[in-house]
């Protein structure tokens, strides 16, 4: 039997977590249809995102996210924890107060397409990230505004988030 390395352990934990999430989505879809499933999925992931970022914030010892520098430190720490290799996505900081997320591929899009619900699926991936911003209590605007799944409609997916800090 092989002993798991730290990065392999991380991959297993995140893969299983995401599969668990997908199972909830799937069973909820079977029980009550896509409209309510979207609603529950988005509410659950946003609520989780808010608590998630606060736990990470506490763990890394950032008292308050008052500046873009604080934001960068916390965001990078969080992304380092939750990003797995199978998620073909990345975030960049193209200019002051701006964060850009680009997805080459999206495991949620691929999974939801497989179960035949992609036409009406509303993205839960960015909902988690917005939960982080809510948890950090920072002001932000998102472009473009997307209702459904951008990977499905445009064959690529990105968002640009602009923050406003008082300092």
């Amino acid at each position, binding site marked *: 039997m092989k002993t798991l390395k730290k990065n392999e352990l991380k991959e297993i934990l995140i893969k299983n977590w995401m599969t668990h999430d997908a199972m909830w989505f799937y069973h909820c879809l079977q029980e009550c249809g896509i409209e309510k499933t979207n609603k529950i999925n988005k509410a659950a992931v946003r609520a989780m995102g808010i608590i998630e970022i606060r736990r990470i914030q506490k763990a890394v010892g950032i008292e308050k996210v008052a500046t873009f520098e604080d934001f960068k*430190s916390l965001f990078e720490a969080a992304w380092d924890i939750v990003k797995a290799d199978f998620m073909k996505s990345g975030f960049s900081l193209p200019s002051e107060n701006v964060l850009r997320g680009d997805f080459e591929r999206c495991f949620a899009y691929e999974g939801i397409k497989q179960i035949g619900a992609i036409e009406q699926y509303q993205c839960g991936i960015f909902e988690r990230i917005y939960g982080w911003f809510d948890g950090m209590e920072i002001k932000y605007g998102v472009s473009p505004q997307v209702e459904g799944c951008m990977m499905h409609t445009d064959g690529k997916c990105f968002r640009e988030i602009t923050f406003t800090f008082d300092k």
Partner: protein
Amino acid sequence: MSPKEVKLTAEQKEKLLRNMWLLHDGRWFLKSVEQFGFDTATKLNLAVVKSIARTEIKQLLAETDFGEVRNIKDLQALMEIAAILYFPEEHKYEFKVVDNNTFVGHVLECYVYKMVSKAGTTAIHQCAAKLRFDSWCQAMGLEGEVMNEKDTSDCNGTCKIIFKIKW
């Protein structure tokens, strides 16, 4: 100015990941209760547990190159790894091989019971442990029976889960 350097150990990251996974699962359940009531949310939760349990064991078997589970010692070894990987730190348990066909998991302090107690719903919550371990056994390709005489309403956070396996 460069971002403030924040460092977490691999153990801290792992703990955060596990906690956030549980948190996300909990949020799905709570949002489902809000939408459909406790009975449907419970039905969904049990269906989800059954599905994810198969996946979590299959993934562990594959990632560790564990091979076939051929006897009670193999089962014990796999259960020990799975428990460390999938149960949170606060879940206290002991494993015991009784004979060549019987393996017992004695739960001393159950993490699910703790969460359900906090929510004040022990009287109506349905324990998914038997279902989870039935799925684990199926995923390992084992024939037999998993028994748990207690449910959340009468377990007080402790129980014995008995695996009777035919080799």
